[in-house]
């Protein structure tokens, strides 16, 4: 999940104030996940990631980290890391 140096893809999100983008290495696939498989962040996760992740979905054989667009909003991020 390290930000890539030469991003190839940008995911674009829309929030109340406008648009923001998230650089990613690549886009894998589109999955349908169910709320019943979702769990919040484990407390043992280190603090910085606590702020970024919104829990994980338990797929059959692996865990899928949840990135909640709201939490990635640059304005919110700034305040989250200040706190």
């Amino acid at each position, binding site marked *: 999940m390290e930000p890539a140096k030469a991003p190839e893809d940008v995911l674009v999100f829309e929030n109340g104030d406008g648009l923001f983008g998230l650089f990613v290495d690549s886009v894998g696939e589109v999955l349908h996940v169910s709320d*019943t498989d979702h769990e919040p962040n*484990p*407390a043992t*996760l*280190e603090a910085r990631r606590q702020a970024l992740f919104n829990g994980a979905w338990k797929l059959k054989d692996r*865990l899928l980290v949840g990135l909640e667009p709201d939490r990635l909003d640059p304005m919110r991020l700034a305040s989250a890391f200040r706190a």
Partner: protein
Amino acid sequence: MDDLTREFLLESQEGLDRMERALTDLETRPGDAQLLADIFRSVHTIKGTTGFLGFSRLESLSHAGENLLGLLRDGKLAANADIISGLLSLMDMLRGVLRSIETTDGEGESEAQDSAMIERLERLQTGRASVAVAVPVLAQGAVAAPVRPVRPHKPRAPRKRPSHPLPDTPQGSPPPGFPEEAGPSREAEESPREPEPEPRPVPAVAAPSLPARPTSDPTGEVQPPSSPGTADSTLRVDVELLNRMMNLVGELVLTRNQILQTASADPGFALLGRRLDMVTADLRESVMKARMQPVSHVFSRFPRLVRDLALGLEKKVRLEMEGQETELDKSLLEAIRDPLTHSIRNAVDHGIETPAVRLAAGKPAEGVVRLRACHEGSHVIVEVHDDGAGMSLDRIRRKAVERQLVTPQRAEQMNEREILQLIFLPGFSTAEAVTSVSGRGVGMDVVRTNVEKIGGKVDVESHAGKGSILRLRIPLTLAIIPALIVRSRSQNFAVPQTALTELVHLSAGETDSRIERLENAALYRLRGHLLPLVFLDRLLQQSPRPSDAPCDIAILNADGRRYGLVVDGLADPEEIVVKPLAAVLREIGYYAGATILGNGEMALILNPGAIAQNANVSLSSETEEALSGDKNGARQDYLLVEAGSRRAALPLETVVRIERITRSRIERAGSRPVLRFEGALLPLDDAAADFIDSGDDPEAQITVVVCRDGRRHVGMTVSQVLDVTGGSQLQEAGSGFAAEGITLLHEKVTSIVSLSSIPPLENAVDGGPAESAFSLEEPR
């Protein structure tokens, strides 16, 4: 301090403890001659003995109390709330002086306080209660009237007594020199006069309780510690000596463990070993018993506490106590003192409603707090039960969200039990509901931490409108605990069993795939929920284990923190003797002590709570909820059994008990297999009939699971009980309807036994209501 003084302090404190109990009882039974005689004697004894040691403050104070009590005992004055409050204040003052003697060897000086107190007690003798109350006990110089100086020494000459003080005809304002010697009765003691049967209406604040209500006598059944009759057969022993004895017994247990593990071909040796085993167990029990004290030592302070709290809050509360004779290790008893005090404060302050609210809810104006202690196996259960309003789940939820202890979404999904657990989170009960009574900063989290520190558990139950129950589960002793021995990089560690909930083994191929990671956080999917993992080798900075090596995960619950401790392997559980740690090891913080194992090796005892904290395992209920709870009620616990050669599931809530019986006990009633069980007939499943006809050994053992089916009980014969486990409901593909009769256990589809398929007994069975013990309402 010499022995006599020490003896005096002990005895006086015991006397005051008894007096405190009796005084609070007096409120409900104001005319009880026995109580009055007991209270009188407590003060009388103090006064009678202080002279020997020259404690003049105590003497003049107890003298004033004795005079008032004499009037009460002789029925010349009726006890009321003012008098009881006055006597309680006197008692506090006497305690203060005793404490001062204990710590400074001197009584301390406070002439103004003493005079005010003596003045107050004298006023109470006149029956002019309202005046007496107006005199602040501790206010220095607040009493305008010149006060008789405290006599430094007891005059020896018998003094003249005034004529009868008249309780019922209020005299004019008492002259400053109102006769101090409103002495006790002149009647000889053998004919104690009946107290005047006129319990006067007490002032409004006094919470007059209805004497007619049957109450379990709160103190009656308990002998005071210095109970007469035991004095000659008992001995005071220094606690230090007992501690030393306990340590030595510990050593002996260790030696025994080692001897028992020493293989020897000599049959005589095995015999000796067994005898050593028995004697050691006996000795250990005896020494443990010597350290036991009845919980009444702690309970005795509560009647007063409840009384004062109730008065302050303008509530009516009765305290009922049960099982005061239940004994507990002295050190543990000390340890539960504060948690219990806090719980009782809570029950009175937050649990019991005001009389108006109670009446409006159709309850008696007087609330009841019941304190109950009893044994349960190697534990003592202490319950604080109140018949108040119960806890408002909504309020708990709101408060937890406000305090950011849980997210709003999470809070919405929680079930009742989980919401109640929230009150144990640190930071839950600090600010809002702080009254002068419950105090600030001490919350239920402290109660839980303190109880868990001594290996106990706290649980709470609440019923809306009916009240709450707080349950403390305390081990009988601390010195010897059952522990699981684990190995990490060939070192032994002991994990206290109290923290252990289950074990998971991962074989060589599984470790990599079953231990999942969310970035740097290792997790294990336990029954579908993610459990944080702590690797012991990494925590202790041992040489790391290869990542694909087999391992065991000990699932721990420490102070509400749930996590899995990953270790290399497990050894047998052992009873271990806890040895204190050297300071250098203690400072590391992960260890609770050390011990020597049966094989002679040393092992450090892990402190699961400290490890959890260090690894940042959250105390938040989220992990707990994730593991134990379910969001839609779709999960249920089952008893997994093997019946015939099939696996089957019995809903755990229906299971009453599991019985081992010999085959020959199964009989036939009509065409049905039945079992005579607790004086009634228990219908069994069809397969049980096979046991009657089979030619096998009639003495062979089989297992019967007794289950509740509606209002009746039925029995299910099984070849073995495999596990208790949570099952998740299966849904039909497409429709999403819940599948009936099957569940997913250990990832296998398992059928649920249908208890209703066991037919009821035929009515023709001779002997009448065969099923009566089990079916109360079924038509015959």
